[in-house]
């Protein structure tokens, strides 16, 4: 009976020879052992290159992870691993070799940050995904040095799926532990799609910084700007809560008495540009506004009911978070 079914199935696939079979990892869900084996095979193919670019980052009192993304040794990691800008740190490659590095910029909002390995060497690196390459439901795999570098154990690999992606955060069910922070998350094309950020109380809902957060602020971070909640206190204040959607950066709430309300912005307006800078992410918008001072003028281009409108906004003072 089974044989008959197989014969029939084979027959069908011959009849539909022009139908391209979807790679197992692109399916909504694996259907059988064959699919699982394809996923396993793919993972084994992608691992060697991904592992080579992984670094363990050693701070005085703790450790994190990071990943090299350029030949000259630019490392993407998490802001809570690097701390300040211009700080000397040590990185360790999977073969155990150490190298000196210096922290660049980053953001406490998304937890993204950058580090530069020093010295004129060529480093192994991984390709970076483009904006929008990763989506909810995709398979992914994470690497890291949980608890620090351990030669006997080696690099730890974990598999999972993207379960949510919103603004500056991606969530997966790929497992994380302290020390994994700053480590890379890859898609099944071998591209870097996110950086490990925070563990959640539930082990199957961990947080990552999506690569989009780096893309939107690449030069800001590279030029050693660190956006912290403290530094934002001094900056200008607009007065909206917004969210990234596929239609753009949409205003969800206008806080009464703020610059945004006075300028006439309304819920559901879509923010397009600030001071001629196109907005790629919510975080970029926050960074631009906080880089200005209270009283500064910001030219905001936005969309309302299909029409593009422009308004000049006098920024206010950010209310203190502290009571």
């Amino acid at each position: 009976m089974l044989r008959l079914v197989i014969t029939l199935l084979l027959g069908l696939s011959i009849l539909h020879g022009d139908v391209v079979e979807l790679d197992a990892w692109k399916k909504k869900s694996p259907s059988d052992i064959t699919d699982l084996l394809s996923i396993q095979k793919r993972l084994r193919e992608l691992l060697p290159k991904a592992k080579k670019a992984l670094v363990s980052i050693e701070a005085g009192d703790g450790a994190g992870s990071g990943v090299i993304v350029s030949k000259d040794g630019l490392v993407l990691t998490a802001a809570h691993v690097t701390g300040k800008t211009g700080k000397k740190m040590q990185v360790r490659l999977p073969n155990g070799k150490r190298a000196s590095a210096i922290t660049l910029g980053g953001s406490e909002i998304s937890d993204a940050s950058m580090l530069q390995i020093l010295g004129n060497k060529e480093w192994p690196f991984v390709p970076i995904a483009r904006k929008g390459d990763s989506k909810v439901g995709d398979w992914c795999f994470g690497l890291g040095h949980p608890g620090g570098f351990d030669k006997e154990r080696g690099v730890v690999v974990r598999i999972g799926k993207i379960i949510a992606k919103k603004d500056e955060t991606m969530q997966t069910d790929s497992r994380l532990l302290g020390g994994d922070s700053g480590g890379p998350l890859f898609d099944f094309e071998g591209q870097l799609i996110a950086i490990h950020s925070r563990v959640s109380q539930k082990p199957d809902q961990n947080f990552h910084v999506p690569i989009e957060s780096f893309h939107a602020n690449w030069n800001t971070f590279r030029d050693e700007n660190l956006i912290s909640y403290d530094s934002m206190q001094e900056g200008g204040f607009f007065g909206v809560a917004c969210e990234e959607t596929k239609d753009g950066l949409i205003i969800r709430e206008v806080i009464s008495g703020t610059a945004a309300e006075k300028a006439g912005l309304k819920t559901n307006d879509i923010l397009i540009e600030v001071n001629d800078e196109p907005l790629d992410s919510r975080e970029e918008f926050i960074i631009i506004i906080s880089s200005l001072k209270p009283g500064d003028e910001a030219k905001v281009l936005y969309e309302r009911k299909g029409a593009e409108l422009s308004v000049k906004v006098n920024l206010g003072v950010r209310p203190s978070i502290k009571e």
Partner: protein
Amino acid sequence: MKIVTVLLLSVSLYGIEEHKESNATGDLLPLELRLNGKSTQAAFGEAKETALNVTAKLTRNDKLIAMGAIVSPAGHILTKASSCVGARLATLANGKVYKLRIKKRNEDLDLALYQMISTKNDFPYISWSESNSSDKVSWVLSAFTELEEIRVGITSGNKREIGREGGVMGVILGNENDRGVLVTEVIPQAAADKSGLRHGDIIQKVDSRSVKKRDQVVNLVSKKDPGDVVTVDVLRKKETMKFRITLGHRSVTFDLFNRNLQMSGPVSKRKDNFPLIIQHDLPLPKEAMGGPLFDLEGNCIGINIARVDRVTVFSLPAEIAEKMTAGLKK
């Protein structure tokens, strides 16, 4: 308060439940499609059925204390020795319950062999994997505690030996001089605390041997295993006192301070001193230790021997665990 949240523009605050509500567009991956969702589990097909049929739940006073692998048609069950002390009953996936009889224990490997009391000689039992598993990343699965679902994941990290940890008193040592070694901190609820040691005590002797350096204390104590007793002579306010301390597990004692483990939930007491382990990331509670680990073909590649933290389980590989079943009729 709501305003403050908005001002902070904090993203770290939304939990999954909250997210579900605010995402009318269905941006959250349904549970069934996740790594351990029903749909992914179903793809494991026969390996899944095998895992459920040859794994047993071991209980004491109706409480799950460990799981086990059925290793013979006569109903022998292999499990984690230190978890299953006092195991009375085995429950199988078909709901049948059997009384247990202990056959063998191997403290070195932390394995115990039981047998279900029955005249039956056709229990479904595991087939050991014959290929020595490599360091290559592979899918693995185990039955979950109710024997209705499985948990799936991958091997991660190298196969390796896990060294011995030795017992600990649960103290932090400070200054050392001719009189002895100062105790600067006693970890609450740990071995030394339970025996009455206090911070400020000066340790002068361990098991009747004089100590003047921290290393001497550490060496004498760590030669012993958790559960062993050491006698400690201390000087407290010019008075000499003697304490008998039953040593604790390093991991349990000191990991109370470790944030990773605070978030991990209960971990296995013994998670050290194994000749070889496979590391994997199956989300299993410590009560699921002792159960078998399978590959995609449904062959048993190891026995889950220790829940190390929230994302790490160690398994004793088949080639080592199988020795405990030598001589059993197949």
